[in-house]
């Protein structure tokens, strides 16, 4: 069951293990659940709302906006929609589809979610929306496999959808394990202790100075290591983060896998992570 109190009144990015992991589908479902429990805003960190996936050709769900919904998109997307919208804010920069706008839905219609072109601009838009509605619940459909956009917005968290099949289950499981470990990193508060500050990306090739000083990341959205590499690091040094981006929960989407068994294995691999079963599955083995 989806823990809605993890989402209400907060900004949450929906990140995924790959394209078509089910981010937009989950977004649409969550919107239906959350409507009626306060002001709701959503947008995208990638072009969405398309009828078919440009990569696989599969039909993609459109994003339907209902009256009261606040949406972040572009002016041209609004003009082309069959819905009816009130423009609350126009931002001074342009996307490939017109200016970024924040709109309120007046009459139902499906809408393309066109993102502002940089993460910091998305942050500005979200702050503007929150200034209008302080208890706003925000959901952002993230780009596949990228957490970095979460970091641009303070106090944001994320949830993770994982598309798992026999050929990638091991890899995705390790990735989720890594996310769990990152989620548990303590926050760096002590400005007096000597530490190795990592303002940019931390990768497997990052050379750290010798010593025992703790390593402090800006946020864990900039960690581009394998799980093994990260575990090796944490075995030898204390690691902290200046800014936490909480992982609210993970929704695995199993394809060609026995659900019960796959979930059980996943929980063993990543015990720190809260898993929520795919709400669209009503399987006997799940």
């Amino acid at each position, binding site marked *: 069951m989806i823990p809605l109190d993890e989402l209400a009144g907060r900004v949450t990015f929906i990140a995924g293990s790959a394209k078509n992991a089910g981010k937009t589908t989950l977004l649409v479902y969550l919107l239906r659940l959350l409507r009626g429990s306060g002001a709701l805003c959503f947008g995208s960190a990638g072009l969405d709302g398309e009828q078919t996936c440009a990569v696989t050709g599969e039909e993609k769900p459109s994003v339907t906006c209902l009256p009261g919904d606040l949406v972040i998109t572009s002016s*041209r997307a609004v003009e082309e929609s069959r819905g009816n919208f009130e*423009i609350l804010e*126009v931002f001074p920069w342009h996307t490939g589809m017109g200016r970024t706008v924040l709109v309120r839905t007046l009459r139902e219609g499906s809408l393309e979610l066109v993102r502002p072109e940089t993460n910091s601009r998305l942050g500005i838009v979200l702050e503007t929306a929150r200034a209008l509605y302080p208890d706003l619940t925000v959901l952002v459909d993230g780009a596949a496999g990228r957490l970095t956009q979460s970091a641009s917005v303070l106090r944001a968290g994320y949830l993770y959808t994982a598309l798992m099949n026999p050929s990638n289950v091991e890899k995705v499981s390790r990735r989720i394990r890594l996310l769990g470990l990152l989620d548990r990193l303590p926050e760096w508060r002590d400005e007096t202790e000597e530490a190795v500050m990592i303002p940019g990306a931390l990768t497997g090739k990052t050379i750290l100075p010798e010593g025992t000083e703790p390593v402090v990341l800006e946020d864990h959205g900039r960690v581009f290591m394998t799980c093994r590499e990260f575990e090796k690091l944490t075995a030898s040094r204390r690691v902290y983060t200046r800014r936490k981006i909480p992982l609210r929960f993970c929704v695995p989407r199993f394809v*060609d*896998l026995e659900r019960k068994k796959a979930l059980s294995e996943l929980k063993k691999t990543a015990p720190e992570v809260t898993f929520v079963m795919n709400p669209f599955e009503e399987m006997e083995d799940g």
Partner: protein
Amino acid sequence: MNSRLFDFTGFTEFYRLLKPLSPYGRQALQSLPWHTRREDLEAWYDRVDLLLEYRRGSRELKDRLEYHLRRLPEIPSPEEEAFSSDDLFLFKRYLYNLKALSDLLPPEVRTAFHLEFTLGDLLSRLSVDGSQESFQIADAYSPRIALLRKELRLLDQEITALRRRRCEDIREQTGLDFLMKDFIILDPRRAGGIPTDLIYREPYDSRSFILRPTMTEEYYDRYSRRDDLAEEELEEERGILKALGTLVSEHREPLKNCREAVTDFEKAWIVASAAEEYGMVRPRLLSPGSPPFVARGRCLPLELECSNRGVDYQSLDFSPATGISVIRGPNMGGKTTLLKTLGFFQLLSQQGFFIPAEECRLSLFDSLHLVAPQRGDTGGQGLSGYGQEVLSLAEALDSPGDHRLFLIDEFGSTTTSRDARALNEALLEILAQRGLNAFLATHILDLCLPSGVSVYRMAGLRQGGLESLSEAGRGENLENRIRLLNKNMIYTPEPETEKDRGSDALIIADYLGLDAELLRRASKKMGL
């Protein structure tokens, strides 16, 4: 005038301190004027004075005005042929805040800045939705669109009800709940038992099926009808946008004038804000060519730098007798600082700002020129520092205008002393002959000066300063010794007298730690 001058005088740093509130303020700062006519600048200052008086009134009014200034968006050019909804939003927000701004101003300020609000009809037309700063193509724009939307809302309700009923039927018959979901993934055993008239089913993976509810014909009819009406609505909206766009275009002249007025207003607001924040006063403008008068003048960037370094800043008192002044004095005695300060004040005034001083009087120039050694990269032209100085001077002497001000810092200092003397003397003669103004800093003693040139000397170390330095500086690091040096210097230019011919250069060199033997030999050579 090039960027070197702005950097040299610290105007670039001052510029960075300014805080425009709207895109118009930013544009105003990007195109600061160069006032050369006294009456124009006085008229501008009069308007700034009006704003200062207004600002001293109610704090609340000032805050509200700044609030509305901040909310002014950049509007599209009214010359465009068509406008989209977001364009119209911007026009509406602009007009709303402009009106609010205008309403907050007293009549004399409104008039002085041409901020009388005359676009009420356009604002009204953009506000038929009843909102202040948002925008929608409201029903009130067209009876036809109101009707279409009414029908669309009814259809939406019917479609929702039909879907809900269908989902309830499906749930009753199959136990599957599609109310919140567009599809469900089910194992083959259960999926096989679902009637296909209710559900569309296809394989999801090797272990499951994906099921979607089928809808009734009534539902699809309504959907189709809705699509048709939505298409009509879109057409109607386009018509409304076109009409509103035409209305905006009809107001292009007043919109253009408004824009200029707002830019002008915010420029004055920025000047007034800076005047309050930094204690700046309106300078008295003198007749062309007159030398300046400064009482307790502060070069803001230097003052800030001193504050950051924990060093006391000394304000400037200076009133040269003639249009050309030679400035001499000890090393680190403030000659260059004096040039920077005077240049800073001149740039401030002629670009419409007040002056950070207790009192300031100055005249206006057609242009301002800097001739100074270029530190660091000389721009890859293959010229030496001296070559750069010569080029700068040549350009400056060739520039047009009867009234020009030159800031000359140690011209020819990298040539021989004989060449430097000859060049400086000749330069002073030319400047005097042409009636130009200048401040020329130099180390050269006994320059042969034409008439109309005054000589000043930076006061240098305080009485007892040397002893104080030697005592206090012992054992201190370089940064602290420089701080002590500053503390014991008097940075005031005074008319030079015969007895001011000594040099503190060796004293300062000793204080800063130059080799003692070297200093002893130098002293001997100087007969000291």
